[in-house]
Every structure is written in C-alpha cells, then in structure tokens.
C-alpha cells in the first residue's frame, strides 16, 4: 500500500514539469555558474577582497645555521675563499628570506596576506586559534637541509609544514597557493643557481614540493569552489521538496481524491507516512544526482563514501519529516500559505545562514554558528568537513542537530494532525 502511494506521488512529481526544473535543473545550473564565476576568487585568490592571516613560525635563522652550513661545506671539501663566496650566495638565496623579504613584503601581496612572525610557538595552541588561517612551520635545520638537498643532492629534504585552517576555504586557499608558488619557485631557482646541476638533481628538488603537498594532505584537503557550491546547492534545493509534496497533498484534498483514498480504507497516518517516505526518497535521489554531476561534469573526487552516505541519508530523512509536517500543517490551514512562506522566506534565510551562497563566517562567526543549527547548514558543514579529509567522528555534532530537527518535525506532525478529517 505504502509503495502504491509513494509510486503515485513520484508520478505526480515527474509528470509535472515545474518540480523537475526546480529540483534538478536549477541547482545544476547554479552549481555550474557559481563554481565558475566564484571559482577564480576562491581557487586562486586573484581578486580576494578578503585578507588571510598567516603565521610564520621560524624555529631557526640564517645566523643560527650558518655555522652548521659552513661545517657541512668543509666536510664536502670546500675551503678558503670559494667557501666564503658560496656562503654569501646561499644567504642571498635563502628561501625563507625570499619569502619574507620579497614575496610577502610586496604591497600587492600585503592586500591578501597579513603575516605575523614568531619563534618557537606551541603549534597545538596556535592551530586552535580561529583568527589564524594558516601556519607555516619552518623547522630548526631547514636552511641546512635545504642547502644539502638543493646543491648537493642530499636525501635530507627540507621538512616544511603548512597548516591551513579549513574553516575558511577562501582564505586558506590564498595562503596555500602563494606558498606553493613560493616553494616551486625556490626549488627551481636553486637549480639555476648551481650551474653544474644534473637534471636528476632538479627532479629530486621537485620532490620537496611534493613533500609540502603531502604535509597538506595529511592534515586537510583543500575545498575548491566546485565542491563548495555543489554541496551548497545540494542542501539548499533539497528544501524545496517538502513544499511540492505538501502542495500535491493539498491538491488531492481539493480534488477529493483524498476522500477516495480514505474511503478505500487508507488511514491518514499511512498517507502521511507515504509522504514522509516519498520526501526521503526524492531527497536522496536528488542529492545523489548532484553528487554525480559534480563528479562527472566538474571532476570532483568525493572521498569517504560511508560518511557521505550517513550524512545524505540523515538529511533525506529530515526532508521527509519536514514534508510530512508541512502536509499536516496545510491540511490544518487548508491553504498553501505555509509552503509559500517556507519557500519564499525560510529557504533563502536558511541557505544564507547555512553558507550555501558564501561562507557566512566571513561576515560573522555568530551567524556561522547559528547556521550550523539550520538543517542545511549542519549538513553542509558535515559534508565539507568530511571532504576536507577529516574523520567520520566530526559529523556527529552536525548530525545530532539534524536528528533533533527530525524528531521535532515528527512530534509537530503528530500534534497538528487533523484527526477529525480534512473536510471540516
């Protein structure tokens, strides 16, 4: 019986052009437009009007390491005036100096990145600081290791680590792209400085770039605009499902087919349950289709599938519960008023707070926190955390918000259920 009712509701959805356009075509168009238009800002930081805060923790300095470098050169058989000349050359091409004195010091760059320098910082504490978007940690022997690897093909690669605060994807990506450029730059310039370098040695230098990227990946994956907006639209457009289903239900009452269904012995509870299941099912299909679109059209690689299934199913159940609630409310009021207000006002406000259009935390941390209590915001935060490569456990606080909302919807549906029939 349930299946008959669900199949009928699916037919009503599919045979009507409007739901298909709003539930499927519109979000796909918006994902494409948003990820392309805003992608350049988000992905490269070219036009960022937002300033990122970078903390450089330099556990060393040229002066500190000069002795060790000199010793190393002597061990390599360099002595006398050539050794002095080499030291001067190395100092002038010290990548950290290059970064601090040239790249980050430029007026152009200062617009995007504000730098703070510190020595010996407790990284754990600094990483908790929400005002810091990125931390570049330069270890004690960095300069020595760099000299060894860049000029003497030594296997010890400079061990840099970059920590990005993924709460703000845009700012994190600015820092990341600048530092990646810097690293690529210094490894290549090192190769040019040394005339008798073999191609093999240059290759080995490239591995130091990989090393940096590996550090990144071990912490968190970068969220590009394509992922951000696919998720943003996915959570937003699922919210349009309840109004459609509740609208159909109201139509069934007005057309008196609902009377026929009741006369056939279908209980109103079963009928409402069928709307719950249809909402859940449609939301699930819709989200899967958007994820597939992201994958095949935008080339997104979705990671941790199990966590994604948990999130998507939970959110779908919420959409189902909201559909049931909206249906009972419409049966009560016998108008489409509630669905219209929800579609016209709530979805926009929720999507804004939930971060579907841009990261609300750029404006206000408080609004961002409120956004995490909206069903769409919680779901979006959960998906983005997972896509950054975080552990499954991070989603539970967000999922809890969803489950609480599901329970609230179900309880309200029961409270508002018109027991005495819709006709009166």
């Amino acid at each position, binding site marked *: *019986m349930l299946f008959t009712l669900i199949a009928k509701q699916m037919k009503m959805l599919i*045979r009507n052009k409007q739901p298909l356009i709003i539930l499927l075509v519109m979000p796909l168009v918006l994902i494409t437009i948003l990820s392309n238009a805003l992608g350049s800002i988000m992905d490269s930081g070219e036009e960022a009007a937002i300033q990122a805060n970078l903390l450089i923790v330099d556990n060393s300095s040229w002066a500190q390491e000069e002795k060790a470098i000199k010793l190393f050169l002597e061990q390599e058989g360099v002595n006398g005036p050539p050794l002095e000349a080499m030291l001067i050359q190395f100092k002038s091409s010290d990548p950290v100096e290059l970064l601090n004195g040239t790249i980050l010091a430029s007026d152009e760059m200062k617009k995007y990145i504000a730098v703070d320098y510190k020595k010996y910082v407790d990284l754990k504490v600094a990483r908790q600081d929400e005002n810091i978007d990125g931390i570049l940690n330069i270890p004690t022997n960095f300069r020595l290791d760099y000299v060894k690897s860049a000029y003497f093909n030594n296997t010890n690669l400079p061990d840099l680590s970059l920590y990005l605060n993924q709460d703000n994807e845009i700012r994190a990506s600015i820092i990341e792209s600048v530092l990646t450029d810097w690293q690529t730059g210094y490894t290549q310039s090192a190769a040019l400085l040394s005339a008798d370098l073999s191609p093999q040695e240059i290759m080995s230098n490239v591995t130091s770039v990989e090393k940096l990227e590996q550090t990144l990946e071990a912490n968190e994956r970068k969220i590009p605009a394509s992922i951000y907006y696919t998720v943003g639209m996915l959570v937003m457009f699922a919210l349009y499902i309840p109004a459609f289903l509740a609208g159909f239900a109201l139509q069934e009452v007005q057309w008196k087919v609902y009377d*026929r269904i009741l*006369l056939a*012995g279908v209980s109103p509870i079963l009928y409402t349950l069928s709307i719950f299941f249809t909402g859940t099912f449609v939301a699930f299909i819709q989200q899967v289709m958007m994820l597939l679109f992201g994958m095949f059209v935008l080339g997104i690689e979705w990671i941790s599938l199990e966590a994604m299934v948990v999130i998507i199913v939970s959110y779908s159940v919420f959409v189902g519960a909201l559909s049931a609630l909206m249906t009972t409310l419409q049966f009560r009021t016998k108008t489409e008023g509630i669905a219209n207000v929800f579609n016209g006002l709530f979805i926009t406000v929720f999507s804004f707070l939930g971060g579907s259009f841009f990261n609300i935390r750029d404006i206000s941390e408080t609004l961002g926190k409120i956004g995490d209590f909206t069903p769409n915001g919680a779901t979006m935060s959960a998906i983005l955390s997972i896509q950054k490569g975080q552990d499954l456990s991070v989603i539970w606080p967000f999922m809890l918000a969803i489950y609480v909302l599901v329970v609230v919807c179900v309880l309200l549906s029961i409270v508002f259920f018109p027991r005495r029939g819709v006709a009166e």
Partner: protein
Amino acid sequence: MLQAINLSKRFKTKEVVREINMELLAGESVGLLGPNGAGKSTTISMLSSLVQPTSGDVLWNEKSIAKNPEPLRKTLGVVPQEIALYPELSARENLAFFGRVYGLKGELLETRITEVLMKIGLTDRQKDIVKTFSGGMKRRLNIGAALLHRPSILIMDEPTVGIDPQSRAYILETVKQFVEEGMTLLYTSHYMEEVEMLCDKIYIMDQGKIIAHGTKEELKGLVSENQTIELKANLLTENFEKTLIERFPTATLHIEEEVLTISMSKSEEPLATIFAVAAANNVVITSAIVKVPSLEDVFLHLTGKALRD
C-alpha cells in the same frame, strides 16, 4: 441496511443538514433530490463516513459507523460531485491506482480495470492523460474509479453535472444497467427526470431538511391531490395576495414577474373566488390556466420555489 437517524450537520453556526432520517435497503435505488445548497453532498459525506455528523447517527447493518466505518467502506462505491481524478495520469493509471488502494493487485486488478473501462466506454482512450479528456469522459472515469472493488452500494453525487446531453444519456443508461444488475443505488440530483428514470424511492431535500419522501407513485399521488393555477395579471398588489392567502390558507403562492402561481388542494374550486378577490382589488386577470400537475411541481408545491434556478 444503511440508515440515517436524526442526522444533523453544522458548519460553525450554519446548520446545513437538520435531523434527517433516511433508509437505503439492499437492491433499492433511491433518489435524493434537492436544489443547490440543500445539503445533499453533506448528507452523502456523512452517509459514507467521510464527515462526522454534529448529531445523529449513521447505521450500517444496525451498527453505528462512527466507531468502525471499515465494513461500510469496503462495500461502498462513492462517485463524488467533483472530478476526483489525477489529471496528469492516464485513465488506466488512475483506475490502477484506485484499484490498488482497495488492495487489488496483479491479474485481478488488470481484469477489473479492463472490465470497468468497458462499462464506462473508455477502452479506446485508456492510455490518454485525463487532462486531455472532455467533460463527459472525465465524468465517466469518475464513475469508473468507484467501481473497481465491485461495491454493492453505489452513492452518486450529481454524476451528470455540467455535461452535454449525449454524455448525460450515456451515463444514465450505464447507471440504469447497474440498477438492473442489482446494485443498491443512492443517486443525488437536482434533475427530477433523472431521479424519475432511475429511482424507486425518492427523498426530497430543501434547506437541510427532508421535506417529503416516498415511492415515485406516492409522490405523484401527493402532487395529483393538488392543482396549480397560473394567473397572468396587471398590477398584482400585495393586498390581493394577502386576501388570497386568507381565503386559501393551505395554498402556496409563488410570484414571478406578472405570473402568480397558486398550488392547492384539488378539492377546492378556487376560480370564482380568485376572480372575485381580483375584482375587489382592482386587479385585472389577463389569463388563468389550471395546470395538470407534474412531478416538477411537487417541489414547487412543497417549497414554494422552483427546483432549478
């Protein structure tokens, strides 16, 4: 079998159905006749368990349906006044859906659908979307959707409203066949001739009340005990009317423009009196017709107004 006992319905302060008593026996074909807004649909909704009465009760096989409507619902087919169908689905899909909600499936469902499509003459159009149907075809499908579970009682609420005469004749013929096959029928209409053609027993309803009931013959007898006089006159005055009512206290008067219709017992010989009263009031009668009573006049006689406006 199906009984209404002192059935009343109030919507907020509006009394729509007032203390009506009805009875529908197995194999009977009963008509419920009344003008727009009489309360026919509301009565039917209460009889079919869709609307809770404000007071009174509906009995099915001597048991109240208020607590347990299921046994009644299973044997009942209801054709609502509205076209209660899914416009985006095809005729067959509509029937399949309504069959399934009644628990039919598989081969049985398919044969029932085919059977119903034949009965309502829509076999050729079964694959077409209902939206594209004519009014008459929708009406036929509206009936068909109530037949899939082979109900033994069929309640039809104005099944011929708003369609062309041909479609109407087709539907009436179909319903007549149901009756001949032994179906119990409750047929609502404001067309006297439909009820006359289909029903043995007739209830006449007005302003929420059953104002008369009986077999066709009994009702006709009720009318034939009366006579109707149609007067055309210049300057019908209030005083003239008043005097007539005083003289014939059992008569009903009805004025439409320059025509005064008087309905009263046949036993009276009113013409001489009428002319005398007219003369006394300076009313000039231009024509006077004593009409042979018809069924249509039952209503006029009972309510003082025409059945249809």
